[in-house]
């Protein structure tokens, strides 16, 4: 039987179950344990609810289109909201879980930019770039891995380009290792990118390398500009003189790591300074790496 398609008998049985579960979600839960129990039993219903709310938001803002890419997009964001709801809800008891979820989703959608929507970012290449850069805004492993996926830099080269000291170096290697072990697969799964899509992207890159990387750079700049806002202290771009001062004085290590991963222009400025071994390497330019 095809996954996702249920026989009529089981559908009829599922309907009362679904109604009962919805009824439980509408009732008041008084303790965190009760909240966990009720919510974990109704995760599929809640995911569909969050996804349908997101779909409605896209429709009402004129951004919806009936295709798989949009369906996946709303599922992804539904899951994101649900994960947060699952964590926050425990501190909100007593509450009615279903309405709390609605309020959490509505709160997100009331923000100026609840998520980054761009039609190009719904294509496989765009989804990959959006997923990588978006993940980098919440995960240090993904952030460090951006240097590899966007510019093809290895851990040693990242340390050289960022002029990191000895204590930071092992952490960079750990970030790379963890990303290769589990982070990459998880991000690809979260993005809904299939193995076939990856292979197709790879083939495209082999056939039209220059055009492919040029498109990737354009989308990367979009995504970087959006997700860089997740770092308030690191958002502003610095002048060449300020970068030079920072490298020479040895401060702002966190700033360098976060900002340069999310800003191609500043990375070029920092590279142009030609400090230490950075000048010995080729100037970093966007060559998308499709494997960790």
């Amino acid at each position, binding site marked *: 039987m*095809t*996954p*996702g398609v249920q026989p009529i008998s089981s559908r009829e049985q599922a309907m009362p179950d679904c109604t009962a579960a919805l009824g439980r979600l509408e009732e008041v839960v008084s303790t965190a344990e009760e909240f966990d129990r009720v919510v*974990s039993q109704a*995760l*599929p219903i809640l*995911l569909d609810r969050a996804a349908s709310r997101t779909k409605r938001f896209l429709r009402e803002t004129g951004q919806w289109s009936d*295709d*798989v890419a949009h*369906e*996946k997009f709303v*599922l*992804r964001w*539904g*899951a994101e909201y*649900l*994960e*947060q709801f*699952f*964590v*926050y809800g*425990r*501190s*909100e008891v007593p509450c009615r879980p279903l309405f709390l979820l609605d309020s*959490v989703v509505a*709160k997100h959608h009331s923000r100026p930019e609840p998520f980054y929507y761009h039609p190009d970012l719904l294509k496989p290449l765009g989804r990959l770039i959006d997923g990588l850069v978006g*993940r980098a805004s*919440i*995960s*240090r*492993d*993904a952030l460090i891995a951006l240097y590899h996926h966007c510019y093809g830099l290895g*851990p*040693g080269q990242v340390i050289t380009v960022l002029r990191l000291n000895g204590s930071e*170096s*092992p952490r960079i*290697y*750990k*970030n790379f*290792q*963890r*990303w290769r*072990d*589990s*982070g990459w697969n*998880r991000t690809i*799964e*979260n993005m*809904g990118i*299939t193995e076939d899509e990856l292979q197709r992207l790879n083939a495209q890159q082999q056939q039209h390398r220059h055009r492919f990387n040029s498109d990737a750079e354009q989308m990367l700049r979009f995504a970087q500009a959006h997700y860089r*806002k*997740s*770092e*308030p202290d690191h958002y502003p771009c610095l002048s060449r003189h300020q970068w030079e001062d920072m490298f020479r004085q040895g401060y702002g290590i966190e700033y360098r790591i*976060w900002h340069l991963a999310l800003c191609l222009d500043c990375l070029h400025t920092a590279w142009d300074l030609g400090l230490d071994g950075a000048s010995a390497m080729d100037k970093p330019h966007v060559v998308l790496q499709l494997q960790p």
Partner: protein
Amino acid sequence: MEAEQDCAEYRERLLKGMRAGIRRSVCGAADLIHVFVNHRRIGVLDGTGVETTLQAQTDVRIDIVQLRSEDGVLLGGLLAPVYGFRTSRISLMRDTIELRVQNYAQGGSVRAVYIPAPSFWHRARRGLVGVADSAAPRPVTFAGSGVRTIAFTQVLLAVALVWLVADRITGWMTPVRPPLPATQAEVHWAAPLGEVTKLEQQLVELSRMQAKAVETIQMQQQGMAQLQRAMAKLPSTQETVASSVLIVKQEIEQRWKGAGGDTDRMTRGIMSKAQSEQEQLEAEIHSLTVANDRLSKEMTDLERYNQNLKKRLQSAGVDVSKATGSDREKPMVAWQNEAIQPPHTPKVAEARPISQQPHFLF
């Protein structure tokens, strides 16, 4: 249909990830925990076994506080109230993080305290103290119960001393009686004196034991302190070893790459040498082919020349036979030469200098 199936599979994967919750994180206890306020990262909590605190103030009202691991998994969080404060205690496997968020009329503040789980020795000691409390008279050698044993012994000693002193004073205050013949009462009075002496000896014994117990306890406390210090150092040592291993691994990789580079260089050298040799060979073959072509052409020309000569010879023979019917010997010679000529023709074609000489003399 395929699209629906793709979406259904994607949905299942997302649900599976959510069910796994924070267990999805592969970060260890020693890794940093990132604190996000309103989806923006404000700092990290160092989870290396010591209590650490992170405090931050914002100009805008705080809506959401999130805790994420290095691999981005949401470990915990809190929705801030519109006004006032809210606290939450988030358990992460063994350790705990206390969050306190407060919103003012303008802006807000957040405070996150990382509380590591008590160490094994700490928990073991607490457990043993509990056991000792339930059985107080039993001599226990560990620190917490040792203190109680000392206190108990000291109280006992004090009571005994007070009793002894009171007894002595009572003895001194009592008027001295004339010696009387020994009576039953005197015998009874002598007996307690013996007991007192015995008690004194016991007390001395007891104080000696107490001194020994105190000494033992002090030694054990020192040992415990050393153990705790060693345990505290252990994670950092492990971290150092792990990082050293990583660095060594990287160096080995680099050396491998270097060795690979040398091999590549050698291979490239051999390949280029072989290629140049191949090119030379090809050039030689080409020149030979050209020469061969030239020779073939010359051979063809010579054959054609021979054919012409043959024709001319035939026509000349006919003319001669017509012209000089009496002289029969000369044509015979010519005919003999003609008969001999064909086997010589290839030699003429192959040998260029000979081809320039006249083959037949008429």
